């Protein structure tokens, strides 16, 4: 793969990081000098630029996957791409697509500054907290598990009271887990395609490195659990699984898979680990769909099953399915970006954009590529 492509990718991510600052909230007084109001005043242009950036990232993604498959992508080049992604993702404005990172800081402040239990006291009850003006869901109790709240003590303490440092530190923590997850996938597969599939997926880049969602921590721990169980370190594996559940709870349905794998290894029975990864991917995909009943299918939930699918690089159906779903989930941001409302046509458009491409892909496979489905049932 040519050096020009790497430079082009670096330029793309740099420009995307700059673009993210057009979304600075008027109420986010810590970066008030960056506020332009562009994303409100020029909604059509903002949406178009977002679509262009997303398309560009996917073009690069397909090219990287092609190169990885044909062995044109080397590990040193991949590392350059990874470092580029981490650096520019870290520096991008995190509240471009989601405000969750502000919520992480608010919950950490309730715990470590105000010394209150975040499962009992909401951020909004501490009314002299100026950060509430831009923090969403401040009228909710802590949504995440205790291990995540414990982890946020690290970036909070290292922020030394500065909100901007707190933001950077949380993003840095998530970058560490992102790199650790990529490394873990490499350890489990020794397959460049696998780590490219996960690490350079635009949805993963946007939701982990830019927006800073903690799902990567949960999935790192879940994957680690399987890794150590397959290495016959059952106790450590189960502990890691429990820690994973105590980040965000979504991996709890993996318990039967974890315990079945542990049991079979303890009984010295044959374990075909691809079947366990496939089962886990299907379970996590179902969890993504079920989240529609709780609130909504948020794009960052795709990290839950993408991490397992990355361990199954030979399953074409899953790979293509995941790529298409990643793209369609990112498209779900565009209706609100364009219309500025959660009402009106936004819900139905989001549903259409999120699931029609997937539906069409499934029909295509059933009609023309049924052979891809054989991998799932072997």
């Amino acid at each position, binding site marked *: 793969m040519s050096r020009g492509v790497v430079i082009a990718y670096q330029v793309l991510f740099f420009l995307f990081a700059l673009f993210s600052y057009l979304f600075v909230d008027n109420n986010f007084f810590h970066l008030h000098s960056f506020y332009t109001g562009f994303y409100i005043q020029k909604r059509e242009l903002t949406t178009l630029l977002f679509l262009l950036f997303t398309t560009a990232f996917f073009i690069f993604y397909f090219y990287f996957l092609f190169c990885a498959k044909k062995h044109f992508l080397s590990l040193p080049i991949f590392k350059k791409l990874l470092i580029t992604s981490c650096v520019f993702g870290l520096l991008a404005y995190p509240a471009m697509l989601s405000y969750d990172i502000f919520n992480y800081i608010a919950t950490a402040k309730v715990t470590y500054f*105000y*010394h*209150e*239990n975040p499962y*009992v*006291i909401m951020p909004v*009850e*501490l*009314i*002299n907290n100026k950060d509430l003006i831009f923090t969403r869901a401040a009228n909710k109790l802590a949504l995440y598990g205790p291990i995540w709240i414990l982890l946020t003590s690290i970036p909070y303490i290292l922020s030394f009271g500065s909100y901007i440092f707190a933001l950077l530190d949380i993003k840095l923590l998530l970058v560490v887990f992102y790199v650790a997850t990529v490394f873990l996938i490499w350890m489990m597969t020794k397959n460049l395609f696998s780590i490219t599939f996960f690490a350079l997926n635009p949805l993963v880049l946007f939701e982990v490195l830019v927006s800073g969602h903690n799902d990567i921590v949960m999935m790192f721990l879940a994957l680690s659990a399987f890794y150590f169980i397959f290495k016959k370190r059952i106790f450590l594996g189960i502990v890691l699984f429990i820690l994973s559940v105590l980040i965000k709870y979504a991996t709890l349905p993996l318990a039967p898979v974890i315990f079945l794998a542990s049991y079979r290894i303890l009984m010295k029975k044959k374990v075909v680990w691809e079947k366990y990864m496939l089962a886990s991917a299907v379970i996590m995909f179902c969890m993504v769909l079920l989240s529609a009943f709780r609130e909504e299918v948020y794009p960052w939930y795709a990290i839950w099953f993408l991490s397992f699918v990355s361990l199954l690089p030979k399953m074409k159906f899953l790979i293509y399915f995941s790529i298409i779903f990643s793209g369609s989930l990112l498209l779900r941001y565009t209706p609100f970006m364009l219309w500025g409302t959660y009402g009106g046509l936004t819900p139905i458009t989001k549903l259409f954009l999120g699931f029609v491409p997937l539906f069409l892909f499934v029909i295509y496979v059933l009609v023309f590529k049924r052979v891809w489905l054989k991998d799932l049932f072997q």
Partner: protein
Amino acid sequence: MIFTIFAFFPAHPAIAESTYVLPYPSVMPGNFFYKIHILEEKLQSLWHFGSFGKFSYNLKLADKYLVEAKTLFEYKQYLLATKALSKSNYYFSQIPKTLSDAISEKKIIIEKQDLFKRAAEKHIEVLTSLGKTLPSVFLWQPEDGTNETLLLQKQIDQSLELRKKVL
């Protein structure tokens, strides 16, 4: 001129009713799960750390035991009712300390103070209603054990006094 017009309309007395809502009665003494609830309360005291957490905890239990006392009084279980009312008084009396701790931690307590006042008003409403129906003194005669004279009206008055200090 508008004021003059309105001045000729007699003001109707408004009955101030507390908008504060007490919880439903919980598990009552004698129930199999009552002791488990007591244990849960002890564990909850550890869970509710922090001045605001302790405020919520104490207020919740003050309310809970007041409702328990009211229900037991209605069923003429006066001995258990007086014990429940004592517990309510205890938790209610712990609340001012949590607010002063919050002040020293530079937390703004306006909303908590307002909530505390509304809770006190509601408690006064319930206790006043109880005071009208209960006997002043009751001799509790258990089947086994010693008799006990329950000074019901005195306890109600003391409970009312505790709440009125808040207003």
